[in-house]
């Protein structure tokens, strides 16, 4: 790919991630003034993940990086808009959910109820691989957006 292709890919990616995050933000009833923040956090995080996977980084590591960026962006926006970071990070992190892989896991699992056991091995392997990818991507998302509070904003428990 040349530079223009890269630019188009990234802009498209950021745009659709922003739209998806705005939709979920509205579903989650976020305050009006924070909508733009949700969209921007998602665009930044998702674009980072796409960029990393394009250059050959594992999907789960790339998801962790994207989610961590969303986490820190959320903290910065939380200060700016005086509202909890989760308002931004949750809507934005939804865009990192591995939809297609999760979909294959779910349907593969149900398909197992119908298949002849003698022929089940390849399907079983598929389900196991997809399940592992889904689980670790979801774990990466959660750890990533919790990263700021785990690494920087530590405090003595008050309760």
């Amino acid at each position, binding site marked *: 790919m040349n530079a223009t292709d890269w630019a188009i890919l990234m802009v*498209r*990616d950021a745009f*659709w*991630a922003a*739209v*998806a*995050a*705005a*939709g*979920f*933000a*509205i*579903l*989650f*009833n*976020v*305050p*009006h003034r*924070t909508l733009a923040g949700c969209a921007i956090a998602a665009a930044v995080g*998702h674009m980072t993940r796409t960029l990393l996977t394009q250059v050959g980084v594992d999907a789960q590591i790339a998801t962790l990086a994207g989610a961590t960026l969303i986490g820190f962006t959320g903290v910065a926006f939380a200060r700016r808009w*005086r*509202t*909890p970071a*989760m*308002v931004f990070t*949750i*809507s934005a*992190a*939804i*865009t990192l*959910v591995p*939809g*297609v892989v*999760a*979909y*294959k896991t*779910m*349907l*593969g*699992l*149900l*398909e197992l109820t119908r298949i002849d056991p003698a022929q089940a091995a390849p399907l079983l392997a598929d389900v196991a691989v997809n399940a592992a990818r889904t689980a670790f991507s*979801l*774990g990466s*998302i*959660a*750890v990533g*957006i*919790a990263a700021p509070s*785990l690494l920087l904003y530590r405090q003595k428990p*008050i*309760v």
Partner: protein
Amino acid sequence: MSKSPLSREELRDIIDLSLWVGQLLLQHGADAERVEETIHRFGTALGCDWIDVLVSPNVIAITTTSGEEFRTKIRRVINIGVNMFMISAINRLSRRVAAGELDRFQVRSEIERINNTPPLYNRWVVVGMVGLACGAFSQLFGGDGPVFAVTVVASSIAMFVRQELTRHFFNPLLVVIATAFVAGVVAATGVHFELGEQPELALAASVLLLVPGVPLINSAEDLIKGHSVLGLTRGIVGGLITLAIALGLSLALRLIGVDTL
């Protein structure tokens, strides 16, 4: 720092307000740490010496202490659904209370105002935007124009069905199955007529409106931070919702007679 002891009446009022705040947070998708800290900050700012908080999946119990006196109360909590406005508004309120701007009577009317605020977005705006969001996902997955159109239609209709069923108090998991089924039927029709290059992407994208993102993210966060019971419960809820999506979707696929994978 020693505070003047509160009367039984004042203590009763403060425990009531603190519980109410905790209930609103837990009901609308806050993590355990936020619930505990907010309750604690609230009660101590209003004049208690100390508050002990127990957050469990369906109940919050707190004990307020002031001088020689203490009171304990529990409140049942049900899960209503994510509402970020509520979490944001309670956060602002708790900051004002901590700064000593409000007394307990003003706090009560403020909580009432927050509790009675109607949804910020009109239901049709939600339907349209959720449809668009799922359409955006189909683009992120690499779908083309027709796939985008099928996804938007499928998930908008599904969102409408979800609102209607929820309004009539159907069991939440049943709502998920029915919603996934509706989205699946519309998207599978697209597959049947081979609309677009990879029509099965519409199937994956159009059920994403149901994705249990908040339970799963909160579950992981609670587990990481040591709130194991709440974390496990939320994880199981997230898992059940995922299973319900799969059931609804696979019913739709068999009905339309589409085999993908």
